[in-house]
């Protein structure tokens, strides 16, 4: 009987951590991590391609390096925005 009360106590503790609000927060945290992970895939590839192509262009025509660099940063900024929106979604899901 003593053991049963202890089980009840422990399972009560386990259940206490999973009230509906906490359950929601839990799944939100998981989704937040997933959301940011997914949001980072595309921009990661994109930024890699932008930098690679920019380096190719600069190596081919070093005299136009300044223009290429400015355009490269512009492209990176636009691509990166997607990942950052994912990051904002992460913050919103996790903490809002």
């Amino acid at each position, binding site marked *: 009987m003593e*053991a049963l009360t*202890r*089980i009840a106590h*422990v*399972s009560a*503790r*386990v259940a206490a*951590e999973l009230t509906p609000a906490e359950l929601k927060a839990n799944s939100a945290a998981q989704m937040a991590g997933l959301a940011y992970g997914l949001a980072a895939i595309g921009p990661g590839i994109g930024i890699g391609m932008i930098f690679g192509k920019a380096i190719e262009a600069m190596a081919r025509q070093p005299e136009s390096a*300044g*223009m290429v660099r*400015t355009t490269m*940063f*512009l492209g*990176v*900024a*636009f691509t*990166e*925005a997607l990942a*950052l*929106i994912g*990051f*904002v979604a992460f*913050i919103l899901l*996790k*903490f809002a």
Partner: protein
Amino acid sequence: MFSTQLAIQVVEKLVPAAGEGRGFSFPPINTILRWKDVVPGINKVVIIAILSALIGTVLFLVASMKDARKAPKGARNLAEIIVEFIEKNIIMETMGKSGMGWTPFLLTMFVFIYLCNLPGIIPFIQMPATARMGIPAFMALLVWVVFNATGIKHQGLFGYFKNVLFPPGVPKALYILVTPIELISTLVVRPFSLAVRLFANMLAGHLLLVIFALLSQSLIQAETMRFFLIPIGVLPFGLLIFLTAFEILVAFLQAYIFTVLTAVYIGGATHPEH
């Protein structure tokens, strides 16, 4: 009976009692980002913003007070380097010679954002003012107002919106698709992405620094298994230093990108592509 005992023991091991306070736990985000008022209405972020404007003013005041005829050095040299950077690398590359009138606006913007970003890596301050949404939101809103006003001033209200909504060189049938996209991208996405880019970059950097600082602190100040945890704690500390150096670059890059995008938007509004 024995197996129940074992199960209880296992469960007790797996579910530590709350409030034991051992190990690593991330504090609630608002305790990292929200600062208490020092004086009513003024908190740390506000102080950083005011100080940024003040430091910028003092820098350019000292620079402009010096004798212009001599070879520049010190404050004047720094100020002239920044001015030439804005003129050569931002305005000439995006707007051309006709955009030179925008130099003071873009210069102020660049200096202010950079000085707001920089406290993120200064020890004992460690808070970029742009990691709160207030300043980026205002700057993006200002840029939105400025480039729309420039477009209306240069092309007229009707001409500007015609160029924005019905970009020339597109087949007429595609306007059904292009016009809503252009409307949203120009009038909504531009300021939104401008603000979010700056804010999220600085917030992410700040959170990274906080995470690695807390991790190295909790490892180095561990109470159990010190001989094992303290050497491990050196690793996140090294990464913390590396990330701090990286954040210097990010602080500059974000100020640069914000200014370049502003220049691009203003340039596009001044000279529509035909």
